[in-house]
């Protein structure tokens, strides 16, 4: 900064080169030297205790007189007993959707396999007697999947969706996590909420 140009006289900041009026710097280091009162520390401890005490008593009252619709007014969720409410957007494990006849809707087009950034999907396609394509085997490696939701986004048949299931994804053996077609298949009713959601977010009106 020793070799300053003439810029510092103008309203431009010498180092950033942007007008000061748009830059709006705000000095945050103020009153940093402690007063004697603050240096004495005892009162500062009391002030800190007041802050933490306030939280403690609010939580305590919340335990005795919980707010409407909740068991207790604490932030923590007591996990296996209580569960968080998942938002509609939540992306859990991907599942295959079964059509009305109980068979999967998937036509083995391979788009999800191609798009998957983790290369978690492997499909072997085949043809039914009527000339209809279907996946002979559809394997999804849950240990590889990164739950990005791309498979759902690209599928032209609404055949794979992100469910709200998130349990059972920690296993001692990776082989258990290689899900076959039967393990992935879910009825259409059970994923109805998600189907509605993706129809909404990928529809023309919200594009």
């Amino acid at each position, binding site marked *: *900064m020793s070799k300053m140009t003439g810029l510092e006289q103008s309203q431009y*900041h010498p*180092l*950033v*080169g*942007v007008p000061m009026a*748009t*830059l*709006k*710097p*705000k*000095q*945050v*280091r103020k009153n*940093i030297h*402690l007063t004697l009162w*603050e*240096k004495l*520390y005892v009162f*500062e401890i009391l*002030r*800190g205790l007041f*802050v*933490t005490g*306030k*939280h403690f008593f609010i939580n305590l009252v919340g335990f005795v007189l919980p707010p409407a619709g909740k068991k207790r007014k604490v*932030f923590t969720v007591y996990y296996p007993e209580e569960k968080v409410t998942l*938002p*509609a*957007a*939540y*992306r859990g494990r991907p599942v295959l959707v079964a059509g009305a006849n109980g068979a999967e809707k998937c036509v083995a*087009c391979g*788009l999800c396999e*191609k*798009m998957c*950034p983790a290369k978690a999907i492997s499909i072997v396609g085949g043809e039914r007697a009527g000339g209809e394509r279907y996946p002979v085997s559809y394997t999804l490696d849950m240990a590889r999947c*990164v*739950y*990005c*939701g*791309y498979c759902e*986004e*690209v599928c*032209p048949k609404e055949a794979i969706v*992100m469910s709200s299931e998130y349990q059972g994804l920690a296993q001692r053996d990776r082989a258990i996590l290689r899900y076959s077609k039967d393990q992935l298949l879910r009825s259409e009713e059970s994923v109805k909420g998600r189907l509605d959601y*993706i*129809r909404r*977010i*990928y*529809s*023309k009106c*919200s*594009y």
Partner: protein
Amino acid sequence: MADLEKDLHTEHMVINMGPSHPVTHGTVKFLVTLDGENIVDMKVDIGYLHRGFEKMCENGTWQQVIPYTDRLNYVSPLINNVGYALAVEKLIGIEVPERCQYLRVIASELSRISDHLTNVAAGGLELGAFTAFLYFVEARELVWDLIEMLCGARVTVNYVRIGGLKNDLPQGFQDKTRAVFKEVRRLWSDVDKLLTKNRVFIDRVRDVGDISAEEAIAYGFTGPCLRACGVPYDVRKAQPYLVYDRMDFEIPIGETGDNFDKYLVRMEEIQQSMKIVEQALSRLPDGPINLDLPQYRMQPKEDIYHRIDSLIFHFKTVIDGIKPPPGEVYLAVEGTNGELGFYLVSDGSGKPYKCRVRPPCFALTAAMPRLMKGRLIADIVPTFDMINMIGGECDR
């Protein structure tokens, strides 16, 4: 004194801190040469979290890189998403609709809030302020709830698309944001009361890790660490992208660049970011969020289900990838630690020829020996915390 040293056989001691040490939140190793408790020399060893991000990008299509960018700075993934998408859009030469730009600003600022909350919380924790940690982690959890509502995941967001966004704002987002920010402000003032005038905290962070503005620039500092030295450099103001030039916010700056300044700058930036989100939400225009360019952005699902031309485009863009024209581009956005740049080279095929990331914390980490030489070993903890090195971003 010299006699004494001859008798005492004082020798320098070399110790390893890390790679897995409570103060190194990324995996990083410090090779510290100590004279008693004083640091004589220090070497930083990085690379423990190297996952080959840049090489991986070359093997994925342009769209497939977006989930990879989530894993760069994993505390503020949305900013990485936005930065990458903007770089690709610049390469193609397209600009997304206005509503999309506002939504990207909202998403980035939410991410910035969560990152700064985490950083201050962890900084407090490492200096023994466990209460401050709990309050800010609660606040961060609330912000993450917002992000989860928006994109369906808390950290692995995968929200931004080239030429648009995955989805629009969910219903009730504005009300929820208002409620969350009220709570975050309350917790912010509680932490402010607990830390800012706390003598124990100040004694640990003030005048530790200070650096002059010139030297900081020479080291390549950006972001809160440079602003703490008193240079109001912020990519959002210096080279405005998206609609940041229409937002009204201030740039907090410090004076000496010590850890206390970095803490104050980050605390103030949380407030400024909340201001930006509120402004953006109140001015949010209507309109589309995606570009209508089927060769770059997927068409809506109805068209894909019912129109053969859309379906063909869909298959082509997914299988071959989108094809930006050959060329190269550099674009920087203001990440939470500083200038996050993407340098992309396209050879006209469906995959990036090169995808280089300029991680802000690489330069910051490189300055650690300069900041630490001659100081006490205990000073490593607050300094390294306020540098906020994120392994995923630094090592890639």
